[in-house]
């Protein structure tokens, strides 16, 4: 890896891509992992398996990680993304179970996720609590609320038969041969990229994350932008909640927290794609892809399941260590 390349500014996509590959531990790790698994297992490099990686490993984590990327963009973090996933899932499943139309139930689910985001927004933008502590509080309160709603944590099952067609379609349907969850994830990735790189809101959001005081002195209301960012986090995470419950036709209390640490990991691994260590959608997506490929590949190697977790952890550690040492050298 060359350390002498000049810092990449937002000057043309091709140069950025070349620079990223030359400089980046993440891209190299992704290529290395892909190559190793392709040689090590006969089944890895098959269309069916690659599709399975995208559908089973990638989709939901990608959506939650993109939600997280918005929080990190404004210089924060959201520990309650799982809570938004759960609230959306609960509202969605309960209303479908009560016989409401799927469309209405889905809207309610999105609303529930956005409400979690709005609560965080009040804490962070309204009162001025730091995002880490505010969303930590939300996580704990959300856990209690879910247990109260479900008599101490009982799952809410939908009967396997008689699930509305639209509900099934959201989880297991396909548009032109592409699974619906993947289509939705792709849509969110594109939309998030546009919002964060092309829209005024995204530029302000990133500026808040880099240098809040400059934003304020420019006469821009940072608080409003931070609030909107956190509501967006809840809303995007809610989409993952809807897809999750449509796929497994059940709501399990506090199950969304399983995404939390991986989403944080993917987002921050993604920041290594940017030379200046900024959160970006492309990096987050590559980070999720890396985690997904490793999870799938290790499974195929038939390695003891428990070693798989160690392997994933070591790989993430190595990527982080490489890129941080690299960055330190570059700035020194």
């Amino acid at each position, binding site marked *: 890896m060359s350390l002498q390349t000049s810092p990449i500014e937002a000057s043309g996509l091709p140069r950025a891509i070349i620079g990223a590959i030359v400089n980046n531990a993440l891209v190299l790790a992704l290529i290395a992992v892909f190559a190793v698994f392709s040689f090590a297992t006969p089944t890895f490099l098959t269309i069916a398996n690659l599709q399975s990686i995208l559908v089973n490993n990638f989709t939901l984590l990608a959506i939650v990680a993109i939600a997280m990327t918005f929080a990190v963009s404004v210089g924060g973090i959201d520990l309650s993304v799982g809570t938004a996933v759960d609230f959306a899932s609960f509202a969605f499943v309960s209303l479908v179970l009560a016989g409401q139309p799927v469309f209405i139930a889905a809207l309610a689910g999105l609303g529930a996720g956005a409400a979690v985001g709005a609560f965080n927004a009040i804490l962070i933008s309204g009162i001025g609590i730091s995002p880490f502590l505010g969303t930590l509080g939300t996580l704990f309160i959300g856990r209690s609320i879910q247990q109260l709603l479900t008599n101490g944590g009982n799952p809410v099952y939908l009967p396997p038969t008689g699930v509305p067609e639209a509900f099934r379609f959201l989880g297991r349907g396909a548009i032109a041969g592409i699974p619906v969850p993947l289509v939705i994830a792709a849509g969110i990735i594109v939309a998030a990229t546009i919002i964060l790189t092309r829209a005024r809101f995204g530029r302000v959001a990133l500026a808040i*994350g880099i240098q809040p005081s400059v934003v304020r002195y420019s006469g821009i209301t940072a608080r409003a932008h931070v609030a909107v960012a956190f509501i967006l986090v809840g809303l995007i995470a809610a989409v993952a909640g809807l897809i999750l419950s449509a796929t497994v036709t059940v709501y399990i209390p506090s199950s969304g927290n399983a995404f939390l640490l991986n989403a944080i990991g993917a987002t921050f691994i993604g920041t290594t794609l940017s030379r200046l260590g900024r959160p970006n959608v492309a990096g987050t997506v590559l980070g999720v892809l890396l985690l997904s490929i490793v999870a799938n590949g290790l499974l195929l190697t038939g390695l003891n399941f428990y070693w798989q977790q160690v392997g994933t952890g070591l790989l993430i550690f190595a990527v982080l260590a490489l890129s941080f040492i690299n960055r330190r050298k570059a700035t020194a």
Partner: protein
Amino acid sequence: MSVDIQLAPVIHFEPGKIGGDTTRSGHLAATALRAGSLIAFVAILVVFSATAPYFLSVGNIGNVLGQSAISGVLAIGLTVVLIAGGSNVVTGGIDLSLAANMGLSAAVYATVAQLGYGDATAVAAALLTGGLIGAVNAFAVVGAGIVPLLATLAVMNIVAGLELVLTQNTVIPASTPLLTALSSSGPFGIPALAYVLLAFTLIAAAIVQYTPTGLRLYAVGEFPDAARAAGLPVRRLLAGAFVASGLCGGFAGILSVSNLSGSTTGSGEMLLPVVVTALLGSVFSRRLVPTVIGTLLSTLFVGFLVNGFQLLNISSVLVSGVQGLLILLVVSATTLLRRQEA
């Protein structure tokens, strides 16, 4: 440089916007907050003791102390990192690997004991495990320059995986003289673990609060540049804090084996409650900074809350909600306070 993340509030308020005699009202509010948290602590004790007669008995208080021992030791370990790393949880002090560390250390202890080695070897192995994990964190943060939140997150995953590899996700039973002693009752019928917690707190408080090293830890955490300018070995102190926290994880692991007479899975569940406890601890200190005694009080506060709920037959599902509300209340109060003082 590192990832540009502020834990510090995203929104800063213009000084002087909030009128009035800011310093005096700030002092008043600070006093109110400190007094308020202590009053809340006492009020909860009074309410519980009035409604549940058994609550304030020596036996029950001893039980709460004993049950709080493991989370107390972990929270104190985290407190050391919070002190040396500074108040910014993302770029500064946090150790997310503590709970997983406890799990792996417990598994190591139980495994070594089961292989027929004595207590001394098993204890040494557990503490060595904890210390090594701390050293890896220290290398990642100080050596490689990874943000602590990420470094310890990655280490947490590795450690949790190693625990599963070692235990194959099963319970490893263990029974040694030390474990029997730890799980027995001491003087006044109070669990031995309660005495362990108190003794551990006293030793930790003595080191952190009353030695030059402890003072240097605070200096490094509050103003690293000034500490460096004053000639303090900033990197070594920060690394030392992570190793100390790792050792606390190893110690908590031994305690957890005695508590459950074996190593069990699911230690990761303790992580966030321990983080909340350690962060809450600073309201019990005079200058609203993390202190060992403050963390002990906050651990006991949560312990009494859980215990009181059980005695009153209030569903324990409320506990995490109350913890969440508490941290939000405390942090809002401190934030509003700082805004006034600014």
